[in-house]
């Protein structure tokens, strides 16, 4: 994985110094809160309902054991012993003191980490496929491109005061594990006549106006990547709406002028930008690529696993995925124990995961947008040992992509924007479907909960989505069906009138019952929904 050189380190160290200076000027009253707000946001520091929240960047979701241990240390020393992994493949801490923030950043900088641009109207952490470097179906490791974009976007002088936040995702497989087309820019690496390039999609997003990004360019090579993306951003920075925060994302610009006109403007801008020499030479691409070379796999690693322990076999079938290297496997550690808070991990659990990565996964971990953790490179011979250690740490829930593997935003328990609680609802739903056999019988079913229309819990992309709203002062939950963030991307549709908390759990159960009654052989819930449509489910819910 990527390692800092002296330049990367000096830049991150300077940022710590800069933020310490800014906090000092705020605490002394030299700066107003209004002036400080965008500065602290660009360092991932939000003011929530009860305290400051600090969001730490995990570039493209990749980290090593030393970095993971630091995340545990910060949870222990500066928070209440927990960290919360997010849908942006980052981690956030919910109980931070403003005056501690500079020290936390200084500690992070010792392990090549930071909180740069994890919030604010700038280019955010670049996201990617959590199976990068391990997936059998990828054409290349997308993280090389993501790292090029990380460096380019870090303190980009022109794009730090955009109309709104900006999220970029890079994947390299046909199977989309990162909700690529629901990003402001999504790039899918493809090979054409032996040359690697990216298909570029622009203008996707969730929020209150969800959109699937249309393809804006069918092929851009690595040599042109930064100038092309710079052109995409410049058109947005100049013409994105600034009169209404709810209409300021690039998806609205695309919607208003149309994909063809946006494409034309970008191509025109690209000609101007390409002449400036903003693209690094191939040597830089190669330098980064060398750091993402495959680890030293044992070519003689034996394939096959002893499945005689039935609990282990269940976990193996659910949470372990195929690896491109024979004899190895990809392990997804569920952070969704029944009744737990989706994405939360204790400092001790973080340490356990770090140790397992160090011993059994070539020192690598990944954070997934579904708020789980991946050990990307585990020898099949070690799977049982890893599973035993996870079981002991309460991390062996065998529910990957099942109904209890819920994405949920922090909701009204933490967030000042929320209209409704998300976490207690996620806990109730998971408890209702706690029976492991029942979950497995329901099969792949992605359930996503947002506590307000900003959609941080990705409810539009849930096979089943839940949106919390405020109805005359009480929490009310709308139900959506048929969304997907994967390669079969689609946006969910609202079933009808909303429910109270218990009512929506009942409604979900009526939906899954109807699915079981209607499904054809081999159909996932989403497939059945797409085949038979909304009506049968509406009938089941509302009678």
């Amino acid at each position: 994985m990527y390692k800092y050189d002296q330049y990367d380190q000096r830049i991150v160290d300077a940022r710590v110094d800069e933020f310490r200076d800014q906090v000092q000027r705020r605490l002394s009253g030299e700066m107003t809160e209004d002036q400080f707000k965008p500065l602290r946001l660009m360092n991932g520091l939000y003011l929530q309902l009860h305290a400051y929240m600090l969001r730490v960047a995990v570039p493209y979701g990749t980290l090593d054991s030393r970095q993971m241990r630091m995340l545990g240390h910060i949870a222990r020393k500066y928070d209440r012993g927990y960290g919360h992994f997010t849908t942006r493949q980052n981690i956030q801490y919910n109980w931070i003191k403003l005056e501690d923030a500079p020290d936390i950043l200084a500690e992070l900088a010792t392990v090549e980490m930071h909180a740069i641009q994890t919030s604010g109207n700038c280019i955010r952490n670049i996201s990617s496929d959590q199976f990068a470097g391990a997936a059998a179906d990828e054409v290349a490791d997308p993280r090389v491109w993501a790292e090029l974009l990380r460096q380019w976007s870090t303190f980009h002088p022109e794009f730090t005061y955009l109309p709104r936040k900006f999220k970029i995702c890079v994947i390299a497989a046909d199977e989309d594990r990162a909700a690529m087309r629901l990003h402001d820019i999504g790039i899918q690496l493809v090979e054409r006549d032996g040359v690697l390039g990216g298909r570029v999609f622009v203008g996707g997003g969730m929020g209150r106006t969800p959109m699937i990004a249309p393809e804006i360019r069918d092929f851009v090579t690595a040599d042109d990547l930064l100038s092309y993306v710079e052109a995409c951003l410049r058109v947005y920075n100049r013409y994105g709406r600034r009169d209404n925060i709810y209409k300021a994302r690039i998806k609205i610009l695309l919607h208003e002028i149309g994909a063809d006109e946006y494409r034309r403007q970008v191509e025109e801008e690209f000609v101007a930008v390409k002449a400036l020499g903003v693209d690094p030479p191939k040597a830089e691409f190669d330098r980064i690529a060398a750091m993402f070379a495959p680890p030293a796999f044992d070519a003689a690693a034996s394939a096959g696993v002893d499945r005689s322990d039935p609990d282990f076999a269940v976990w193996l079938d659910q949470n372990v995925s195929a690896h491109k290297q024979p004899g190895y496997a990809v392990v997804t550690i569920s952070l969704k124990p029944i009744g737990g808070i989706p994405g939360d991990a204790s400092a001790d659990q973080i340490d356990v995961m770090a140790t397992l990565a160090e011993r059994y996964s070539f020192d690598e971990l990944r954070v997934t947008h579904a708020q789980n953790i991946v050990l990307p490179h585990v020898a099949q011979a070690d799977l049982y040992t890893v599973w035993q250690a996870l079981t002991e740490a309460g991390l062996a829930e065998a529910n990957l992509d099942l109904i209890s593997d819920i994405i949920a935003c922090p909701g009204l328990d933490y967030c000042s924007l929320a209209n409704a609680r998300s976490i207690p609802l996620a806990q109730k739903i998971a408890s209702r479907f706690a029976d492991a056999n029942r979950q497995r019988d329901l099969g792949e079913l992605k359930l996503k909960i947002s506590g307000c229309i900003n959609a941080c819990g990705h409810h539009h992309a849930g096979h089943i989505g839940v949106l919390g709203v405020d109805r005359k002062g009480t929490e009310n939950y709308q139900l959506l069906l048929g969304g997907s963030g994967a390669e079969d991307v689609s946006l969910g549709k609202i079933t009808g009138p909303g429910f109270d908390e218990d009512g929506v759990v009942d409604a979900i159960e009526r939906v899954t019952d109807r699915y079981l009654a209607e499904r054809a052989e081999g159909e996932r819930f989403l497939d059945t929904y797409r085949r038979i449509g909304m009506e049968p489910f509406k009938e089941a819910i509302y009678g």
Partner: protein
Amino acid sequence: MADPEQTDPDQANRGGEPRLRFRTDEASDEPAITLDAFLEGQTNATAVRLEAGDDARALLGHLDKVALVEVSFPTFRDGRGYSAARILREGGYTGELRAAGDVLVDQLPLMRRCGFDSFAPEAEIDAAALERALTRYDYRYQKAADAAVPVWKLRHG
């Protein structure tokens, strides 16, 4: 820093005098006219003011007649002026490029990178804080409109 409430923007920008200037030539004391007035052509003015929504590209055919472009920042959150500056510098403009309005110390280093070399902030900027801000970063990742050599070039020559 002075209390922003006590700084009258008109006072601060009287006669178009910039507070901060990173050029050695003589400052223009000509009041800047609007882009529309300039493009109508009935003027000998050499100073133009671009509002945040104006298209900087409209000036590109006339750069030889311009000595000062003042770019307005109605609020520090409005970042359109950064692109306006880049476009003018990329188009070969070498005259004075001034950021005027809600320009804060923490934005100034970014503005310098986009090609601004003169500043007329509404509120006074603390000199010590500015010095720290401008010298804090030794290295930059990107090539921009300033002389900074991007890190990738330092790495590979």
